[in-house]
């Protein structure tokens, strides 16, 4: 009985059928592969142009254009005045569709308010403030008439020296404060590009799962799970931020504004928490920004008011965590509105 189904022909046929079924399902349910390409002009790796589906958090489709800029096919062809919104994966905003990204909402809001401005997101996962230092002059060169730079600040560590991990560039403190480029290069660019061409992202998941395996065969000893958190790094915030902001201002004559997006409100300890744990340090950062003529938008009030009014978090998605993660539709809208208020 069993031999009937275990013949070679049936095995191959079943494998092919299952492969095709999963291929079809993964087209709708699996993230596109993030394919990078090297931009000679920007001298860095950027996302390759194309359509990017994101399913593991939210449910967004992003059309990536030149220089990895989302929702605009070729930024160099747009002659209008522009606003650049810099950031990490929060600005990249794969989690929401193009028309729900903050730049697109802001452009629409500007149009509705008779302001002749086009906003565009320029974000890459893993970016920190040092990356903007290197990229701002280049983007201004290739996409002229940028009138203002808004930098999304989602984590204070993005402004601090000696980070635990940095991709494209890094803020160092030893032996002296300096900003340096790294030799970071995305892995498996060609392999990913080929797989993405045939929409075989799920095959990549398989191979990457296998490559990440590190089997252990030696019998072990289990331990109590008493995690001791590593002590927080101590910085001279004032000196570090003065250096960073000085450097940033050297790169452009256009105004720069930080948009601080705290991790609140969040669900914690069986209640909604509104208290920003970075409140004091952010107040210091804001003060230092003012001395450097760098503007500062604090999203704390926007986020809290919106939540109290509608019970909607600025971050999070129903298919991951409802309160944490990247910005959702509400978060993008609120940031766009805050920037519009700032422009006005």
């Amino acid at each position, binding site marked *: *009985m*069993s*031999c*009937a*189904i*275990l013949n070679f022909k*049936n*095995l191959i*046929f*079943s*494998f092919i*059928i*299952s*492969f095709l*079924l*999963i291929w079809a399902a*993964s087209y709708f*349910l*699996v993230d596109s592969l993030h394919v990078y390409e090297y931009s000679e002009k920007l001298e860095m790796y950027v996302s390759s142009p194309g359509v990017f589906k994101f399913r593991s958090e939210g449910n967004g489709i992003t059309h990536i254009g030149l220089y990895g800029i989302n929702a605009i096919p070729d930024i160099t062809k747009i002659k209008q005045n522009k606003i650049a919104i810099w950031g990490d994966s929060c600005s990249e905003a794969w989690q929401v569709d193009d028309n729900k990204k903050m730049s697109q909402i802001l452009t629409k809001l500007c149009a509705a308010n008779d302001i002749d401005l086009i906003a565009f997101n320029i974000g890459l996962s893993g970016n920190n403030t040092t990356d903007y230092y290197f990229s701002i002059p280049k983007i201004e060169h290739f996409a002229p008439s940028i009138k203002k730079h808004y930098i999304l600040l989602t984590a204070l560590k993005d402004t601090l020296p000696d980070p635990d991990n940095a991709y494209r560039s890094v803020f160092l403190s030893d032996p002296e404060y300096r900003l340096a480029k790294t030799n970071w290069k995305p892995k498996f660019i060609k392999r990913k590009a080929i797989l993405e061409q045939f929409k075989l992202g*799920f095959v990549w*998941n*398989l191979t990457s*799962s296998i490559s990440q*395996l590190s*089997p*252990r*065969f030696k*019998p*072990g*000893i*289990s*331990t*109590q799970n008493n995690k001791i958190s590593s002590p927080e790094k101590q910085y001279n915030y004032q000196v570090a931020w003065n250096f960073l902001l000085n450097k940033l201002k050297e790169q452009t004559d256009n105004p720069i504004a930080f948009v601080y997006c705290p991790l609140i409100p969040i*669900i*914690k*300890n*069986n*209640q*909604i928490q509104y208290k920003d744990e970075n409140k004091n340090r952010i107040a210091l950062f804001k003060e230092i920004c003012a001395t450097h003529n760098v503007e500062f938008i604090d999203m704390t009030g926007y986020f809290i008011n919106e939540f109290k009014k509608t*019970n909607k978090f600025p971050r999070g998605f*129903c*298919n*991951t*965590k*409802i*309160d944490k993660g990247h910005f959702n539709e509400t978060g993008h809208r609120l940031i766009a509105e805050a920037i519009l208020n700032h422009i006005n």
Partner: protein
Amino acid sequence: MLFTQIEFFIFFIILIILLAISRQKNDQKIILVFASYYFYAYWDYRFLSLIMLTTITDYMVGLCLKSQNIIFYRRILLCISLFINLSILCFFKYYNFFIESLSGIFNLLNLSPGTLDLILPLGISFYTFKSISYSIDVFNKKIEPCTSFLDYALFVSFFPPLLAGPIVRASHLLPQLKTKIKITQNNILQGLRLFIFGLFLKVFIADRLGLFVDIFFENPNVFDSITTWIAVLSYSTQIYFDFAGYSSMAIGTAKMIGYDIEINFDFPYLSKSIVEFWRRWHISLSFWIRDYVYIPLGGNKLGKSRTYINLLVAMTICGLWHGAAWTFVFWGFYHGVLLMFNRIYSKTHKERPSSHQTNFTIFFNWLITITGVVIGWVFFRVDNLSYALVIIKKMFIPSPGIAWSHPFAIFIIISTLFFHIFVYFKKNRTEVLPLHAKHTIAALFCMAWLIIVFHPKGFHPFIYFQF
């Protein structure tokens, strides 16, 4: 070692090859015992000594019982077995619980016994119950004592059901150990089918549901009533698929080696009464509790009130077996109460045979049963009883809060419902994926792909490992 680890797959392939090439029955058993000890020691080799202590104790007690006919001495031998097994279990599992629970009394007596940093040995509840059942069965002369130490060591340590059941009875497994293992294509196929199906239930469904469920049960105050229902139903589905998944993998693994283990779940959420639920849920445990706790207490032979007390005691012990916390004790007691009411209802309303029941009656009975079970899971999952009350209140009194309709959770709840309806109306429910059907292999391949592509990152132990 977990069934979901890559190390297990490599270990198991090597084991199957070794078993296939060894010609002697005894060689095969030695290989299996060492493999089982390695399987357990992989997690923590220090606790292997506990399994060995249990093995030696009950093997010796069994042999002594064989040569002893005086009831007094036989009782002493049984007491030795029970004392050693239960002492180990109580010390590792319940010491801190009792110290914390009785702290008020200790304070009054000016005593201050501190709690200990104890690690709960994996599977201790399962192999202890397995070994105790052997001693009791030998004492009651229901089975012959095992005369081969190798056989008995293999019975206690046999790795597929070692960590989370099913609780295999000696009367079922020991006779199988007497025959030579034959690795056959049919067994491999049948076992593999069960294993992949179990892995799919655990990794693709239960683990992914856990991501939503865990957040809800840590913060039940903030969510609204609809989210509360979705989360509670999700947990009911998660615990079923997690545990049934493990059982299926254990049965499948044993089958590939050539041993049969009885099923542990038989569509429990199709039950139309709480009695039926316990005949279908964790069957090996509920029958163990029936045979070794409820019946020795007197069962239903000592009158109405005594029967109810016996039910409450047996189910409270069942709850305590699940974990050293008052939430588990309450869950067991709650099920005891449900069983008691079930009994009262059955006595007062003489049940008509199911063939004469109207569809409405069947549906109503199912609805009442499933609601009772689902409410029970709330007590089972929460960290403290106050959370349980918040959740149950939100379930039945519409409450505002954050709405979170997790799409995967809703999809799985609806799919599970439809799957159960399909199984209910299917005449032959024994095989969902029949071995002779041509689509079975394709379905198994699909499941394997889904597990690989959609497995959640991180470590997700089986829920029943904590017991």
